[in-house]
Each structure stands twice: as structure tokens, then as C-alpha cells.
């Protein structure tokens, strides 16, 4: 089978789960009820799994890709995905302090920082691409 998805397709597929987590979180009039926490915890776990899995796909794609601009784009979009998770959790981490919410918030923040660091690194590499290096500094064959 030759049909394939690109990273943007994957993000588009995964984003609704973040919206669903927010919807479920906001749907309970009393977030302190056991049923609210149970339902919200399930959503938090789903988004956590999605975040980790999407990051792994980003890693696999950036490892295969030769084009530095494409790599930069992948990290930028992955960072946006983490940010969407953070934005959804901003208003929910206080009503749901014991449902894995703060942990997911910290994870999304740490992953976003990791994406931003990789994005900055690639942008630096793009800037340096035009630099001429003296012959003999690096091996001719890698």
C-alpha cells in the first residue's frame, strides 16, 4: 500500500481529542464529583498518550527528512500541538487538581520546550548552511 499520511494530517486527526478533553471537562457542573473526575481522568490519559505518540512520530519524521526547513516545520507544528494542549488545560487544571491534570500540563509544557529547542537548533543550522568551511576540517566522506 502506497497511501501515506504526512505530519499535518496526523495533527489534524489528533487535535479533536484535545477539544474532546476540554468539552468533557467543562460539561460537569460539579468537577469535584467522582464521576466528573473519572470521566476527565480518562480524557487526560488519552491526550497524554496522544501527545507522547505524536512526539515520537515527529522524531521519526525529522530523522528521515533531509530538508532542514521541513524539519523546522515539523518541530514548529509539534510545538503548536503541545500549546493547544496547554491552552485547553489552563482553565481545567484548577477545577480538576486530582485527575492527572497538573501532570499532563507539566508534560505538555516540557514537550513544548523540547520542540522549541529542536526548532531553534534547526533554524541555526539553516542559517549556517551558506558558511564555507576550510577543506580538511571535516571528513570528506561520512
Amino acid at each position, binding site marked *: 500500500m502506497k497511501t501515506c499520511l504526512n505530519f499535518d494530517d496526523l495533527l489534524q486527526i489528533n487535535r479533536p481529542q484535545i477539544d474532546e478533553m476540554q468539552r468533557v471537562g467543562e460539561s460537569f457542573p460539579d468537577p469535584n464529583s467522582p464521576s466528573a473526575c473519572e470521566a476527565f481522568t480518562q480524557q487526560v490519559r488519552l491526550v497524554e498518550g496522544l501527545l507522547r505518540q505524536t*512526539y515520537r512520530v515527529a522524531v521519526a519524521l525529522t530523522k528521515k527528512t533531509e530538508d532542514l526547513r521541513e524539519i523546522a516545520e515539523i518541530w514548529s507544528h509539534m510545538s503548536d500541538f503541545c500549546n493547544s494542549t496547554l491552552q485547553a488545560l489552563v482553565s481545567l487544571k484548577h477545577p480538576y487538581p486530582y485527575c492527572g491534570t497538573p501532570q499532563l500540563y507539566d508534560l505538555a509544557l516540557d514537550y513544548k520546550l*523540547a520542540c522549541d529547542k529542536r526548532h531553534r537548533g534547526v533554524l*541555526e543550522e539553516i542559517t549556517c548552511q551558506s558558511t564555507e568551511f576550510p577543506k580538511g*576540517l*571535516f*571528513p570528506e*566522506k*561520512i
Partner: protein
Amino acid sequence: MPEHGVPEGVISREDLAKLAALFDRSEYALDPLSLSAKEAESQFEDEVLMLFRERVEPHYSSISFTVFRCKVRSLCRAYLRQNSP
């Protein structure tokens, strides 16, 4: 001795292989928060700085550390693409 008569660089292919392995464990870590990824990143940065101070800076004054580090990162990416199983 360089392979097949291809000239080695001031930074050898062996140096690059070592750096690429560290780069692989940090930049391409499936969990960027793991201890392994953080240790590899720290070792990579130390190695790049050491190579720059010992072998580049004394002979190539026009090359800044930032530019050298950029090139090393790009070479590590290329090395891993070409030499990964």
C-alpha cells in the same frame, strides 16, 4: 588510516561517529525528558566544545563556536541518515 584513501579531516570520521551517536540519543530521543536523552545532550555539548577548543580554535580563527556547532549538528544528521540500519 583513512578508508579507501579518502583524506580524513581535523575532525575525523570516528569523531563524527561518536558525536552522531550522542546526537541520536538526544535529538532523536523518543522521550525527550528521559535521563538518557539529557545525559547524551550534555555529553554532546561537552564533546563539541572540547573539539572546538583543542582542534579548531587554535588553527581556524575565522570559525566561531556557534558556526562550528551548527555544522557538526548537520553532519550528525547526515551521518545518521546514511549509516542507520
